[in-house]
């Protein structure tokens, strides 16, 4: 037994021809191209989703612990928590009366317990109502809170929240939020309050812009019935994510939509570009097959 590999059966002359053919057939990759294309798509979506979720979670942790990002981290964290709290608060709103005691415990000195939570909560809860809403109704009712918040941040920024809280219902909201914010007692509150203004804009921006995946989904959804609309979405995708993770998928869909619209010259041109850019892509076979099918 040497360590040298024996000549493969396929290449020795003595092997029966049928066996050679069989071995070659077994190794053929193209019969799986449709499957691979399918799985690539799923995988791309999954990985993209994971990446989105993963980073969010990671940054969440970071912010919560505040290890690296410090102040801003805390602030962003509060924003995130706030959003969550907002969601939760929907459920807890009904039991409005209950909340009173809890806040009181926290801020014994504060005359209006409800107000306290409000300061923190309102900001995150209503990302859509930014500075304006706060500024106008700054200090109205809450004394308990102001002291804390005001200490670090100019009164207006923090105080605004209360306006919302002033209403009877708000009291509940805080409870939801606070549950999660626990780690940040009165002392930290200042830190949280200040940063919020900054964090909001970011959150809003990301919320307003559909993700790469969302865009592609949107295009795909309308591709069959409204190819023109799909093309517009695809163009937007191309502008925003020129070399995104799903760029190949976008190109494939674009080519297919162009064909559907009868713009075969454009489709062919794109296909050529696609070949250059992704010479090994598993989509190539499908695209070429479809091309030849439509030619006939």
């Amino acid at each position, binding site marked *: 037994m040497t360590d040298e590999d024996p000549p493969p059966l396929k290449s020795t002359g003595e092997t029966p021809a049928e066996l050679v053919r069989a071995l070659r057939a077994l190794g053929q990759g193209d019969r799986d191209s449709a*499957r691979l294309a399918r799985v690539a798509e799923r995988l791309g979506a*999954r990985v993209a989703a994971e990446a989105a979720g993963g980073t969010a979670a990671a940054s969440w942790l970071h912010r919560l612990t505040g290890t690296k990002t410090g102040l801003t981290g805390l602030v962003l964290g509060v924003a995130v928590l706030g959003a969550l709290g907002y969601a939760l608060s929907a459920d807890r709103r009904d039991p409005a009366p209950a909340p009173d005691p809890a806040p009181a415990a926290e801020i014994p000195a504060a005359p209006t317990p409800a107000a306290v939570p409000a300061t923190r909560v309102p900001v995150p809860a209503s990302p859509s109502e930014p500075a304006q809403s706060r500024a106008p109704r700054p200090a109205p009712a809450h004394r308990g809170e102001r002291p804390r918040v005001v200490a670090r941040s100019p009164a207006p920024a923090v105080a605004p929240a209360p306006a919302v809280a002033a209403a009877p219902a708000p009291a509940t909201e805080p409870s939801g939020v606070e549950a999660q914010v626990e780690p940040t007692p009165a002392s930290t509150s200042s830190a949280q309050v200040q940063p919020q203004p900054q964090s909001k804009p970011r959150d809003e921006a990301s919320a307003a812009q559909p993700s790469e995946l969302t865009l592609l989904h949107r295009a795909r959804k309308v591709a069959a019935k409204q190819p023109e609309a799909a093309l517009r979405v695809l163009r937007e995708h191309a502008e925003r994510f020129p070399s995104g993770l799903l760029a190949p998928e976008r190109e494939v869909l674009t080519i297919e939509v162009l064909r559907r619209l009868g713009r075969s010259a454009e489709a062919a041109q794109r296909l050529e570009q696609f070949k250059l850019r992704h010479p090994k892509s598993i989509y190539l076979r499908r695209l070429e097959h479809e091309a030849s099918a439509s030619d006939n």
Partner: protein
Amino acid sequence: MTGTRGPLELAASLPRQLREVFDEHGSFVCRSLRYLGVREADLDDLLQEVFLVVHQRLCDYQEKGRARAWLYSICTRVAHAQRRKLGRRRESALLADEAEAPTQLERVENRQALELGWRLVQQLPQAQREVFVLYEVEDMPMSEIAQALNCPLQTAYSRLHQARARILAEVQRMAAEAKS
């Protein structure tokens, strides 16, 4: 320095690499899963599973030349996990539904060759089949195969010899049968 590399950036850089691996070795992974007895119906899921593992471990993926050995060992684990999950003790359900699976692109003689290939390979015990297929079909060097299978090189050689003897005997038997 490294701190400036945000998670987003990492996420953006990894998938491209993942895509390369997928494009280059996707069909190999697909075939490997079949060799390992995965049914056609489960192939999509397991294929995805394998590449999710690849995605998580891309950082291990340094020895480019050994990519297939690495991928095959992932396939092995994924396929075994699946088999355990299904509680299927039988060695394999290779090709149980392969007959209905050939794509429309396949030419007839190709299909026949493929069917013959599967039939022959299926007669081998799993351990021999793996070596045989990786060597004779996938053209992997024996040293890489031994790595993929996590067995000594000599073991891989002896399995190959046994497998070849069986296969050749079977082909001869079939030829004789056809003549008579």
